């Protein structure tokens, strides 16, 4: 669209990240503008029963809140692709949190996949939310770069995830650009919420 940007029309199928089962299809438009974040319009048809999804979420959420010891783990999957069965839902949560980050970071020319969860640490809370800190490796294409992102997730049942993150790549830019002292405590912490 001359002088405005580029608009893409998409029709695609989705699948459950963990089981690989068909999860439905979506229709979307993405408008890449010159100086702002892309505008996305999307409508999906889910094949999985929404009630069933809610039940699974409830069960998982309850499990997390009932933990007396915080869940702590590394390398999911490990070098050989293995994931402890008990940690599969935690991996799923990492994917969900990462998707916020990947959505923010992607551009018309840069795409992402979540390559590996390097570390996960649960923070036990007194209220009815589940809280996690993830260190995640994102694979960027076509640059082939691997970016390390620290992602903080707060999940309250029935609400969208609250995600805060900071990636190593951004820190670097900050140092280079503004001449700040090295010391990554002073990075940009992004907050992201909303209906995803």
């Amino acid at each position, binding site marked *: 669209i001359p002088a405005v940007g580029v608009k893409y029309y998409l029709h695609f199928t989705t699948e459950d990240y963990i089981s690989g089962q068909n999860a439905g299809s979506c229709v979307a438009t993405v408008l890449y503008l010159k100086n702002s974040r892309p505008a996305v319009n999307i409508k999906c048809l889910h094949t999985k029963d929404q009630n069933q999804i809610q039940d699974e979420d409830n069960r998982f959420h309850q499990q997390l809140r009932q933990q007396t010891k915080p869940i702590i783990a590394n390398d999911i*999957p490990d*070098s*050989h692709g*293995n994931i402890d069965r008990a940690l599969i839902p935690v991996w799923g949560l990492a994917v969900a949190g990462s998707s916020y980050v990947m959505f923010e970071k992607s551009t018309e020319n840069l795409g992402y*996949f979540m390559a*590996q969860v390097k570390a996960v640490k649960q923070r036990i809370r007194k209220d009815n939310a589940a809280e996690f800190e993830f260190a995640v490796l994102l694979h960027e294409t*076509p640059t*082939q*770069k691997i970016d390390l992102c620290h992602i903080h997730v707060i999940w309250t049942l029935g609400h969208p995830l609250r995600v805060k993150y900071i990636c190593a790549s951004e820190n670097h830019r900050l140092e280079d650009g503004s001449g700040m002292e090295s010391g990554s405590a002073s990075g940009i912490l992004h907050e992201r919420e909303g209906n995803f």
Partner: protein
Amino acid sequence: DQVLHIVPETLQQVQHLQHLCSTFLLDLWKPPLPEDIWAGEDLDIRVPAPLLQAVKDSLDQHMIPYKVLIHDVQELVDQSMPREMSSHRQTPEGYVYTQYHPMDKIYEWMTLIQENNRELVTQHYLGNTFENRPMYYLKISQPSDKTKKIIWMDCGIHAREWISPAFCQWFVKEILQNYESDAKIRRFLQNLDLYILPVLNVDGYIYSWETARLWRKNRSPHMNGTCYGTDLNRNFNSSWGSVGVSYNCSSEIFCGSGPESEPETKAVVQLIESKKSDILCYLTIHSYGQYILTPYGSTTEPPSNNEELMHVAQEAAAALMGKYGTSYEVGSTSLILYSNSGSSRDWAHMIGIPFSYTFELRDKGTYGFVLPADQIQPTCEETM
């Protein structure tokens, strides 16, 4: 080592033999203890090789006759035990193809494959990596008096793509294991030689096992050792350095200081150049993405034989899908993936090899580079 049989005749001889056993700490087979050595009774002693001459000289000096009962103890041991690897005809028994293996195991595997299949397989030295490790390829060829066309396949040009070397190993196993029973394979090999390079980027592969699982490039140092690695698949002389690369060592797609600057690249180039008139097909195996990519990455200009290239690739993708329903996308790199220059696939086609393809194996991003080992078998079966 040898085992000597002696029957001492006198007390003096018994004493001398006891002395010999305790001095040299010899291994008494019969009787077990020196104090049980008696005149007129059998004595069997194992003498280690380095002591043999000295012991025999001493026996001669004291006029004690002896007989060599066993001339080579090791040989007997080898014969009596089924050696783990040598008994099975085609492939090393016990080698688990559904697991990822570190480089030292892969080197061992190559040696054993050649040993167990001498009529069909020869191992060849290609060159050295930056860290001076040998690069070997396996040539699978049916003995014949005619020169055959060649199909080349290399795996592991990018260190973190572990499913790729796993596929090369699987491929070799499949061909050799089914050579006798599968007429198609025999017909194939009547007219074609297969050259398989299981791990091209040896240094990188080892680095991904020992230090950083997601390493991609080789391990050549730059900037006074402050930065490591060239992307070998950007280092070939095919529009080198023009598009989809970085000139900065810190990038994962750093194309190197010049075309073919890396020893690994040079080693492959040398061999392929020397045989290019006989090479029909160049295959290079990567992950992930599930694509069969045709030239070129450096330009959208289609190659001269594009129709045929596409047709063959589409047939391959259809056959692949027939196995487990896995879908692979087929097309020119620059059109369906992204632009890149200096790729080995582009280079192979540019020097005249008619069929040149990059395979990007499973998956589509769920596990990405850390594809679980339980997907090795289905991935390899469908790709075969």
